[in-house]
């Protein structure tokens, strides 16, 4: 049900360590926002676009992933045309699209596992301060992935129950029971986790 947006591949970008990719994303966003020059932004946009579209996704798949964000960007650019000078609108448009394409590239070339390792590393300072435990974050993430299909099945059962009674399917009458039924499991799940000693408490 939850398939990651990672795309299988062996390009040089796939092989780069996550940390390098995330740092590159950070540096790129700072650099793009620091410049107004179309001579820098246009090549950056073309480069990010080339990088993204050379990952092995079909054109349609690639576009579907960024389409919604591009739609928002284009709508805002259309509004900007009435308010700002044209070169400025072009700069804003190119900058945002370049950034979004690069971000989509990082997402498509990095596995969930690699991201999790990096998050565990980034959480270390907080762990040292005693604010949280990196293991808890991984555990919570695992729980979400584990329970989404269950909760979705429950949603469908409640929907079927509505149908069987001839009731209209409204979010209000579904959300309440869905949340109560789901959260009531918390005690059992917590007991199961503690019984296995996952959190060493």
């Amino acid at each position, binding site marked *: 049900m939850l398939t990651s*947006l990672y795309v299988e591949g062996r390009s040089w970008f796939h092989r780069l360590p996550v940390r390098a990719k995330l740092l590159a994303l950070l540096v790129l966003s700072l650099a793009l926002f620091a410049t107004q020059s179309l001579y820098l932004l246009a090549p950056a946009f073309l480069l990010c676009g080339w990088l993204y579209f050379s990952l092995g996704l079909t054109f349609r798949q690639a576009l579907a992933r960024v389409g919604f*964000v591009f739609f928002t960007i284009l709508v805002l650019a259309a509004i*900007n045309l009435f308010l700002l000078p044209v070169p400025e609108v072009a700069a804003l448009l190119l900058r945002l699209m370049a950034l979004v394409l690069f971000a989509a590239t990082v997402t498509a070339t990095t596995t969930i596992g690699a991201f*999790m390792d990096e998050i565990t590393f980034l959480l270390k300072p907080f762990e040292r301060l005693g604010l949280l435990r990196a293991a808890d974050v991984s555990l919570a993430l695992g729980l979400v992935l584990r329970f989404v299909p269950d909760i979705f099945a429950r949603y469908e059962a409640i929907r079927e129950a509505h149908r069987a009674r001839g009731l209209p399917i409204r979010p*209000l009458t579904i959300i309440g029971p869905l949340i109560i039924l*789901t959260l009531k499991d918390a005690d059992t799940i917590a007991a199961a*986790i503690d019984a296995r000693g996952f959190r060493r408490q």
Partner: protein
Amino acid sequence: MNTRDLVLIALFAAIVVVLGLIPPITLGFIPVPITAQSMGVMLAGCIIGAKRGALAFLLFVLLVAIGLPVLSGGRGGLAVLAGPSGGFILGWAVAAFVTGLVAERFVHEGQREIRQFVGFFLASVVGGIVVLYAIGVPWLSAVSGTPLLTAATGSLVFIPGDLLKAAIATLAARAVYAGYPLLPARA
């Protein structure tokens, strides 16, 4: 944090993922379709409280960031966060926290039903609309270059839908509060 709180946070994040899979409702009198997922912020604050609600949304944003298509319509990944509406997504945790604070302050057991409704509605509006827009709109303006005033005026289109969401979240939160109260047992 005890294990039960951790599980509640994870389960709520999972509920928000499922809310994104429910088809959006279109209403004649409101220009934008209503996605059940966008009610998640209000529900999280009102049902599991400030701290757990905010953590549930931090977890959810983490899912988005590591490339899981958990946003409604199967969207996800760093591209969404880098786009113009990234501020709204990153603002969810803060919005859930404020919703929770207001709900914890104003809703108590043994109150008259109507006061609980008012408390939850107030919490949903303050956290889920005021705080969320206070973060999302300036962010959008900064990223897209659209002047702040234009961005703010444009956002008014979404306010009627948001008020309706707050009303639905209020009724749902109160139903959960009556059936299985979690708000009083604060993390």
